């Protein structure tokens, strides 16, 4: 294990390291792992700002809204009920409205957004992919494509005219 330890935390970390040195599996699996332990106020151990903006929480109930607050359509909800969370695509969206309810408290929670999972073969190739292919199949110098340009001559300009 590669270590980067902040001031004053050598003691606890050496105890844990000693513990893991007695577990063969841990030594093998953590040989390229990097353990970083330090006080949050220490500049060397601060959280990078980019990580804060694109947070990815994993199952921490303190920060992720519960199941009832999942954003999903009725169809997707039925799918979750029937097949579980594994059957849908999920991502997190930060929601200020999910706060404990105290006045002036601007904290929020991450709300889980669930969408129907696109089947790689059926939905992907048969449905979405042909439409994309059709769009790419028309080259700009194709006359059929240019009819649009005649109707809206400034289509290629950056000015939003429509």
């Amino acid at each position, binding site marked *: *294990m590669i270590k980067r330890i*902040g*001031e*004053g*935390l050598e*003691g*606890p*970390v050496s*105890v*844990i390291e*000693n*513990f*893991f040195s007695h577990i063969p*599996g*841990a030594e093998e*699996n*953590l040989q*390229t*792992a*990097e*353990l*970083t*332990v*330090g*006080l*949050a*106020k220490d500049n060397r*151990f*601060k*959280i*990078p700002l*980019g*990580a*804060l903006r*694109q*947070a*990815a*929480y*994993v*199952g*921490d109930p*303190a*920060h992720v809204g519960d199941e009832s607050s999942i954003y999903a359509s009725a169809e997707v909800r039925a799918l979750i009920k029937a097949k579980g969370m594994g059957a849908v695509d999920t991502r997190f969206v930060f929601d200020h409205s999910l706060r*404990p309810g105290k006045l002036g*408290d601007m*904290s929020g929670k991450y709300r889980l957004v669930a969408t129907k999972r696109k089947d790689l073969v059926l939905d992907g190739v048969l449905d979405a992919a042909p439409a994309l292919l059709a769009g790419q199949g028309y080259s700009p110098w194709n006359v059929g494509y240019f009819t649009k340009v005649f109707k809206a001559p400034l289509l290629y300009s950056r000015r939003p005219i429509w």
Partner: protein
Amino acid sequence: MKFESGSEPWCEVMDLFLSDYVGFASLEDTGQLSNNAIRNVQVRAGMMSTPVINMSCSYDLSIEEMKRAEQSGSPFGSQLITVKQRYADYALRMLVAYLIYFGNTNTETVGLLNVPTSITSYTPASMNNIFLTNATNPGAAQLLALEQIIVPFLTTVYNKIETLKLVMSPTCYNALTAPYSTQYSAEGAIKAFLANFLAGKTKDGGVPNIEIVIEPLFAPSTMFNANTYDYFMLLATEMETGPDEEKTPLIMCGAPLMEFVYPTIPGAYDTQYKFLKRYAGIFAPIGGQSVAVWTGFGTKGSGN
């Protein structure tokens, strides 16, 4: 105990205001002039603060590993890639567990063992010693010893606690299963203790809860506890307080963020993943009344 995340997952210091933990009812004569005026609740100004520790563990998954994990059908082809993630998480969880119990004085991280003003050294014969030497009534002697430390603890908090937790080393627990008496009853001391304690009822008719935690981190002569003696801990985690008898946590574990994964950047050869846990420490506003620790209760080492 209760894990509290606070309202800000990225804070650098966790604070607890102590004003919630002060105040008691008093009976007074209404006829007295001095008692007619409404008294303010005494608010104790104060704050407990603990700096937050960022701890993270990273692991790499190479394209080769990912591809091998995708293969199915052959028992030799597929390989579990979750093992690395689980070990990384394990390392962080062990570190948190160690800090919860033992704390770290260099960073002012309070652990459960640092909460009481002093740790009592248990001088009478340890549970293991009674188990080894008392041939006729080991359980009876152990039960008495157990009650002698638990009763004062409960009396101090007027039995208002919700759950009493007994945290002990495996040696201590195993010794406590010794028979009560060879002549009268084969019941273990721990069983007799539970039966005796649960015989009484609380004011609303329920029985008090007891939880026994067998904690290997308290065992003697290990890498966690280098001493020859073990630790025994009594915990009062919650109490009913205030006019509405709300449950107030007496011991809180400040952890702003326990499960976080940095956004990953898929690499050309391998992808690095990084777990993060943010941990502050134990907050025990009423101190030694909620946590009591003895050393050498289960064993004092070398066969005692």
